[in-house]
């Protein structure tokens, strides 16, 4: 364990702009599955506490807690179990229905909600793997939705071709919007977090403006900032018949997941993506053009987020879109990517989980009167716990996982290395 090599006297520009955030990213990507599962459990537990605290029966029973404590406990049990059962029934399988085909409908709803979350999560996760925070999901989705939507309502093309053209338009729109960020980062060294956040505003107000302007995106004879509905030929057809909301877009989501898996693990471009993401210095010394890699990665990441925008506009809400079409998915995608540890199939699973929360959250509110905000809190807590593995380890008395990283010179507080 003796001290490693002395600090290198490298003066290259690459060393300077490697952000400290890379270390955080690595921690997130390389954490283990157990922590993820425990984080979800812990979040559900705290969610249960919140459900109990906000439940009226519990509050009433707590008023005479010291005379009849069992009433309070019973009320807590009823509130929490009722809420989580409703969550399950609303998202996976409703065993109160008689036949299987209607009972399974919540699961198809879950997958419908999951579709844009998964592709968007793939986009954000891919950027993570290349060492970049793409916070610009919202802007990329909006531009993509506008592009796909415009093709979807204004072009008259044959069935099939119309859909394909609209999807491609959306992907290209998202890719280009993110590509601007990649280009600016590569050429000028600007930080992608600031660029993507600012471009979110630009995209939002640009799309809002176009939706308010007749002749651009606004529906004719409309006063609201809203587009015309999509033409029938441009809408994702239902996958399991008209009784279910699940549409063909979900097949594209599976294909996208396979593609991203192949790209990262089996392609030479993905090899370079990972090398740059883990250690840009070594990548540069090995002759990789790090700057170009950043551009390519942003193009692919933006394309995937664009696909999420397409899912929204041609799948979830094909009746015409407003500037809120992204529905916060661009940000939820960050959460999904973190929960999925930036691994394609992990993101897929995380997206389905969050889709279930979305589908079940409404059912929970409707049947049990539990505020839907609890679900959002649970989602946020999951990520909070994942971002703080030592906290989860401490709560569950797990051994310290940091021993595989050998810190040679321990950090002494208040003092830093000279030179």
């Amino acid at each position, binding site marked *: *364990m*003796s*001290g*490693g*090599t*002395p*600090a*290198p*006297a*490298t*003066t*290259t*520009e690459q*060393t*300077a702009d490697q952000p400290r955030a890379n270390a955080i990213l*690595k921690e997130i990507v*390389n954490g283990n599955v157990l922590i993820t599962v425990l984080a979800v459990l812990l979040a559900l537990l705290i969610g249960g506490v919140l459900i109990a605290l906000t439940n009226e029966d519990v509050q009433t029973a707590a008023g005479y807690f010291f005379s009849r404590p069992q009433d309070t406990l019973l009320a807590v049990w009823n509130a929490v179990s009722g809420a989580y059962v409703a969550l399950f029934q609303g998202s996976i399988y409703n065993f109160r229905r008689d036949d299987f085909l209607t009972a399974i409908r919540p699961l198809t709803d879950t997958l419908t909600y999951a579709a844009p979350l998964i592709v968007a999560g793939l986009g954000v996760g891919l950027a993570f793997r290349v060492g970049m925070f793409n916070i610009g999901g919202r802007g990329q989705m909006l531009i993509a939705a506008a592009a796909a939507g415009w093709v979807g309502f204004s072009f008259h093309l044959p069935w099939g071709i119309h859909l394909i053209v609209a999807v491609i338009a959306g992907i290209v729109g998202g890719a280009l919007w993110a590509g601007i960020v990649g280009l600016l980062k590569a050429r000028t060294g600007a930080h992608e977090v600031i660029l993507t956040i600012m471009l979110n505003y630009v995209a939002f107000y640009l799309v809002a403006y176009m939706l308010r302007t007749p002749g651009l995106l606004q529906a004719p004879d409309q006063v609201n900032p809203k587009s015309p509905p999509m033409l029938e030929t441009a809408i994702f057809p239902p996958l399991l018949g008209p009784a279910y909301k699940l549409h063909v877009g979900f097949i594209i989501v599976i294909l996208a997941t396979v593609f991203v898996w192949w790209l990262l693990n*089996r*392609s*030479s*471009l993905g*090899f*370079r993506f*990972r*090398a740059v993401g*883990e*250690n840009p*210095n*070594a*990548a*540069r*010394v*090995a*002759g*990789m*053009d790090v700057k170009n890699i950043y551009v390519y990665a942003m193009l692919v990441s933006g394309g995937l987020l664009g696909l999420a925008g397409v899912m929204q506009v041609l799948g979830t809400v094909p009746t015409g879109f407003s500037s809120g079409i992204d529905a916060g998915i661009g940000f939820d995608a960050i959460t999904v990517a973190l929960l999925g540890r930036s691994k394609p199939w992990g993101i897929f699973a995380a997206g389905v989980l969050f889709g279930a929360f979305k589908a079940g959250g409404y059912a929970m509110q409707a049947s049990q009167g539990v505020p839907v905000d609890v679900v959002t809190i649970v989602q946020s807590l999951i990520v909070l716990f994942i971002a703080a593995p030592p906290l989860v380890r401490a709560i569950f008395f797990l*051994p310290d996982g940091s*021993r*595989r990283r*050998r810190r*040679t*010179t*321990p950090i*002494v507080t*208040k*003092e*830093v*290395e*000279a*030179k």
Partner: protein
Amino acid sequence: MQLELRGITKRFGALTANDHIDLVVAPGEIHCLLGENGAGKSTLMNVLYGLYQADEGEILLDGAVQHFDGPGDAMRSGIGMVHQHFMLIPVFTVAENVMLGHEQTSFGGRLDLDAARKRVREISDRFGFSVDPDAIVGDLPVGVQQRVEIIKALSRDARVLVFDEPTAVLTPQETDELMAIMRQLRDEGTSIVFITHKLREVREVADRITVIRLGKVVGEAAPTASNSDLAALMVGRAVELVVQKQQARPGPASLVVENLDVIDPNGLKVVNDVSFTVHEGEILAIAGVQGNGQTELTEAIMGLQPRVNGRVSLGGQVLTGLSVRRVLDAGVGFVPEDRTEDGLVAEMTIAENLMLDRSHSEPFVARGSLRLEHLDGFAEEKKKEFDIRAQSISTPAGRLSGGNQQKVVLAREMSRDLRLLIAAQPTRGIDVGSIEFVHKRMVETRDAGIPVIVVSTELDEVVALADRIAVMYRGSIVGIVPGDTPRDVLGLMMAGERPSEVAA
């Protein structure tokens, strides 16, 4: 003060870094802790300094059992540490650094800088350090910064001083001065623990030597023990410190560097008008103290430096202005100085690291896809050929020891069709066994008729490998001398002096 460690054991998971280590350091003695990198020396000292808690065993000072919860406790008990990487704040003055952590304040919380200045002057005068208390630490040479660290420890009345690999960053002259300081401290009654893996220094300054291997004390030795005896204790077998090699048979000039300047981002010339040639079948060693432009010189040849003047050509092909990828394609093999930062992607597997600089084309990539079967076969072969000790080729490179990491880098670079090999600090921080291996491969590469450049700050390595030696100082080449030039001449050159017998 007498320091005693009894049965110190420290485990990290399955790894036992220290296994029942006993050590007694008498007052007024320089006790050397000798061992390879990874032997557990630094862990032991971190236990002593309160940074780690020992799983078993106890620390005694003058016979009294101590319990340290942190460096603060250790310092209060009179233990001082001079870290390998200085723990100083570069923008603060010497006095501010010295008072840091136990600031004295006067009325109203005002820092009492005068007291700190006085303290610095007092200690500085006592040992003849000539350190100005008001100098900004970042402006001081490395050797002086180290003295500030020593003053810092002494200002807290340290009676036991630990030096953790203190000479790694010093010139030979500065090292000699440090040794003199250590002797002086010893004569005043301070107990000194000197951690190192350099045999020469041990023999020069130690009163007693304890050798540690794989976390255990494997023996004690007197300073009169021979180099090979000490080395054998360190690695557990006899080692050759001399590289076996034939007389070089240099061919025609291959790499030609003409009037090369490198300008750093601050606009300073870090390499200044450097010219040299390397012939086929010879090893040119570039010697010099760390930070005198060697790093930038190799990076400039590789195309890694953005602002370069002058011309570099290899076998007639101009390399200046080419991208790194083109330089690699021209047949240049590069072993970077900092392998964890620049040579490897720690999270990637051994196999993936072996193709790191060949991700663009055959044989590892076909039509945009990785050819994993080919890669696995290649990796298995190289693992055997270069004796890379790892569970499998899918072990992440970051889990390997320094020596095995370096073998991965070497295996990658030497598996290409080379027309030039540049190895920067090829044996830094690796075990003696691996050093031997690396040196052997360097000589084999030379004998295959390939020009080799070895950059090293270790005189032993330079002398062992070089057919010719170029010494760099402050960005310029002081002189290029034959491989058998005496060490004291090289030492003087490394300090920037050009001895009269050396031609320009």
